[in-house]
């Protein structure tokens, strides 16, 4: 478990001295039972994953609620597989970027671009590769699905870790260097603990975000390749195809149960535990709590079993760096020379890669297609902007109202986060039914689906911002009896602005990603389509038209990058400069 630093076994120091206290207590029973259950489930699920590929065709998805726990398990394992992959990626890539200037030069812009590529874009191009890796086993398809989920999770985690590493507190860095900590120990003692709170939060966000792409990554249809992996996503796809309302409801219920379970058994304990890593020297007023964490803390046997493991981790022999520093060979001029050469090489490779992509696309795609794609991109862009504006008009006042009332904020905040985790695509069939029944224009009325799942980011960020408004400023507003408009202009809006920008930025990115799923919705044989870049990519994917998929994805990335650079980043910088409360 990667979150565990060697220090987590500090609980119950007294226990060290009293031998009889090694005996398990009732908390051990609870914890052992739960941990044992999870272990059995993981082994079972892993065995299933390795069945022959033919098994998928002989045993299609059955909409029988008795099978649902099994499907839910498979889905959960996939998501956690992806999370582990993301963590591994984060530790490797973000660390490299933070430690090496040359690597940073390549990795950071690359992450920025990868972030803007729609998740489903990756799936199209990788599924054949992964199936090729394990032609006879389900494992290949599993890996393709896990990879797709990974692409929905990894980038923001890597960014968060990189930022933490770049902002390590200077004095702690000096202590570590002065004592000559090895890189390995430094990672466990300084870097990982410092980065943990932000990383945990980002991991939770990633987990929430990836539910949305579950249906697409489990029920894969790329050209002639059609695979349906056992899981909640596939169940949902089949249920929608068969117009089975009850089955959709079952799937929604199962998702809810899974989300609550991993939230209670995994994320809450981790958040409660990670609270000690928050970098501040004063005690916080309110500590996050978790019943399962309390159970784990009170266990005796487990605490003692954990200690040797922690000790082992800490003592992995890594050669110690020499205490005495030597003058650097060459000096700064040569170092700069290397930098320039490296930069030139990177630029050359980038140009070569761009040319290769253009050549690949231009073999079958004409300039006319490209112009069309850009036009469709503009349509989707206008949808995204209008929807963000609409969602802001609705959620900002509501969020402020909630945030200014601590009792409400406390209750609503987890609900909003749950809603953000909840895959909005299960509601798409309703939209199709309504649009068909009332003969609405799908170009307009399919659009709200894009923001259905992402609007909550605006809400809970605004709630957090309003709740964080300093009390003295609110009191000043009260003393001078500020009129409501003045109160909004001078107190509330500046106060929540940085939070709002964060929320709107996330919502905007999510909406672009969602457009591929949201601009095409179906219920049974009924299929509605809105004209836009999302449906362009979705159609090209279904037809197995790779050059057009590539074109669509490239155009969407360009749009997202331009929107980020021209709107969100300047807003972010502006709010950092003007509205920081400190």
């Amino acid at each position, binding site marked *: 478990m990667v979150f565990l630093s060697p*220090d987590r076994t500090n609980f119950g120091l007294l226990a060290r001295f009293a031998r009889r206290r090694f005996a398990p207590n009732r908390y051990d029973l609870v914890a052992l039972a739960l941990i044992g259950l999870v272990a059995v489930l993981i082994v079972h699920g892993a065995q299933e994953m390795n069945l022959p590929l033919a098994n998928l065709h002989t045993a299609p998805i059955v909409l029988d609620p008795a099978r649902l726990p099994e499907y839910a398990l498979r889905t959960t394992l996939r998501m956690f597989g992806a999370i582990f992959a993301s963590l591994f990626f984060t530790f490797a890539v973000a660390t490299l970027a933070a430690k090496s200037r040359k690597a940073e030069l390549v990795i950071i812009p690359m992450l920025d671009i990868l972030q803007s590529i729609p998740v489903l874009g990756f799936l199209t191009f990788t599924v054949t590769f992964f199936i090729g890796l394990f032609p006879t086993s389900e494992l290949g398809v599993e890996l393709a699905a896990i990879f797709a989920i990974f692409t929905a999770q990894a980038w923001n985690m890597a960014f968060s870790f990189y930022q933490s590493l770049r902002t390590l507190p200077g004095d702690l860095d*000096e*202590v570590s*260097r*002065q004592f*000559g*900590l090895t890189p390995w120990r430094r990672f466990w003692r300084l870097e990982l603990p410092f980065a943990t709170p932000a990383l945990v939060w980002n991991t939770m966000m990633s987990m929430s975000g990836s539910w949305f792409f579950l249906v697409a990554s489990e029920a894969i249809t790329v050209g002639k390749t059609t695979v349906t992996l056992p899981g909640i996503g596939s169940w949902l796809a089949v249920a929608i195809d068969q117009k089975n309302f009850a089955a959709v409801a079952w799937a929604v219920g199962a998702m809810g149960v899974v989300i609550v379970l991993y939230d209670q058994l995994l994320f809450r304990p981790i958040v409660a535990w990670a609270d000690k890593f928050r970098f501040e*020297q004063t005690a916080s007023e309110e500590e996050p709590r978790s019943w399962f964490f309390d159970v784990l803390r009170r266990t005796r046997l487990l605490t003692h079993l954990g200690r040797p493991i922690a000790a082992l981790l800490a003592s992995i022999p890594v050669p110690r760096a020499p*205490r005495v520093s030597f*003058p650097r060979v060459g000096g700064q001029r040569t170092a700069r020379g290397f930098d320039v050469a490296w930069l030139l090489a990177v630029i050359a490779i980038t140009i070569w890669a761009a040319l290769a992509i253009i050549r690949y696309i231009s073999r079958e795609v004409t300039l006319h297609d490209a112009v069309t794609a850009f036009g469709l991109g503009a349509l989707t862009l206008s949808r995204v902007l209008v929807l963000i504006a609409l969602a802001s008009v609705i959620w900002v006042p509501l969020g402020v109202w909630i945030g200014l009332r601590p009792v409400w904020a406390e209750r609503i905040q987890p609900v909003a986060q749950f809603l953000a985790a909840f895959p909005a695509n299960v509601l798409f069939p309703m939209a199709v039914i309504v649009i068909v029944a009332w003969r609405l224009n799908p170009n307009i009325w399919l659009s709200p689906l894009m923001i259905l799942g992402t609007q909550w980011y605006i809400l809970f960020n605004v709630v957090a911002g309003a709740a964080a408004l300093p009390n003295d400023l609110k009191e000043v507003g009260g003393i001078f009896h500020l009129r409501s408009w003045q109160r909004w202009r001078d107190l509330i809006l500046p106060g929540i602005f940085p939070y709002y920008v964060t929320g709107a930025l996330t919502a905007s990115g999510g909406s672009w990603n969602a457009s591929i799923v949201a601009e095409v919705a179906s219920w049974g044989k009924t299929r509605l389509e809105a004209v836009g870049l999302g449906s362009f990519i979705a159609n090209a994917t279904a037809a197995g038209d790779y050059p057009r998929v590539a074109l669509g994805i490239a155009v969407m990335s360009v749009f997202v990058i331009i929107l980020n650079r021209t709107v969100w980043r300047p807003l972010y910088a502006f709010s950092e400069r003007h509205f920081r409360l400190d």
Partner: protein
Amino acid sequence: MTMTLERPTESNEALVEVRGLKHVYGKGGGAGLLVLEDVNLTLRPNEIVGLLGRSGSGKSTLLRSIAGLITPTAGSIRVRDMPGDDNAHGVSMVFQSFALFPWLTVEKNVELGLEARGVSAVERRKRSLAAIDLIGLDGFENAYPKELSGGMRQRVGLARALVVQPSVLLMDEPFSALDVLTAETLRTDLLDLWSEGRMPIRSILMVTHNIEEAVLMCDRILVFSSNPGRVIAEIKVDLPQPRKRLDPAFRALVDDIYARMTARPSGPPTSPGAFPGMGLGMALTHVSTNTLSGMIEALAAPPHNGKAELATLANELRMDADELLPVADTLQLMRFAEIEGRTLRLTVAAKRYANADVDERKQIFAQHLLAYVPLAAHIRRVLDDRASHQAPATRFRDELEDFMSEDYAGETLDAVVSWGRFGEIFAYHEDDDRFSLDDPA
């Protein structure tokens, strides 16, 4: 730069020897900021040596060079081990900000250095508990730093530095983040441990900007000049321990050090880039106009009546030397006061200022600002000459950076902006980083 760690042959040989140390921050060429030049230092067993100087005198850089945290541009540093039963060796450091890991308990924090040296868990625990006990924190082994007061946190920092048995303890302004009472208690406790020989260390080298603290604790004080940092005086403190602050000999020594620290450096500037010249390239310290006014008022009022000893002022106003001296310097620069040896004397203009009302004060301040601060006059002239009466601040920032490093240029411009605003000789707009003549009034 060479750095070696070796065992000495004789017990009275120097523990730390610094020869010809030079350090340039920033770019490798001549454009960098020269912080240390030709610094020599010898630390012998059984002494506490204080490094005293204003901010920017490179004393922390020297300390960090000895700790191996910074690789100086030139010069040599030798750290020697002491022979003996307890194999004390190397250096260890106490930080101004305590630098405790908030996610580790007191015990784990103390064990950090031992862990890095590969000491076994049992031995680690034994030694860290002993260190915690020595420093008076037993009972707090399992506390996290956030549960401790500032003074207790610094005790943890001290225990962490001592537990690795260094021969030299380096301390970087160890008491300056503490309140007066806590700092005094900790100083006394440390001196007690030192005089009773209960700490494994052989010598202490501490950086401070508090003159009284240096006189109270040190056997020898090295006074640094700033820009660039050089040792301008070495003072032996022969007063017997425990020293009393009110002892006339103690006071005389403090006064003497004040005088040395305010003395203008003699000799030609060695680096035109970093040395505060008298023209446009004069580096200014951002001192608030409120502080300047307050100091003028305090000096003008009885019992001083326009003249006071710096040490007395510092004591009365509860200011450290590195807080007081920039104020005195700025007053002198604007001809509001003159520094004569250890005393600060108000000028006629300053006495007028002290009795004036706000508008009159602003007028006097503006006159002096334009007359004696070349940068302020320069900005005003440019604004007057331009038809639009506006100029981007980057223009002046670039001009300043021809003379000094980016940081100094930033602080200098900040100082002029704040003084110019008070004197109402120009306006500055933060939003678009520009100066203008338009007066908000």
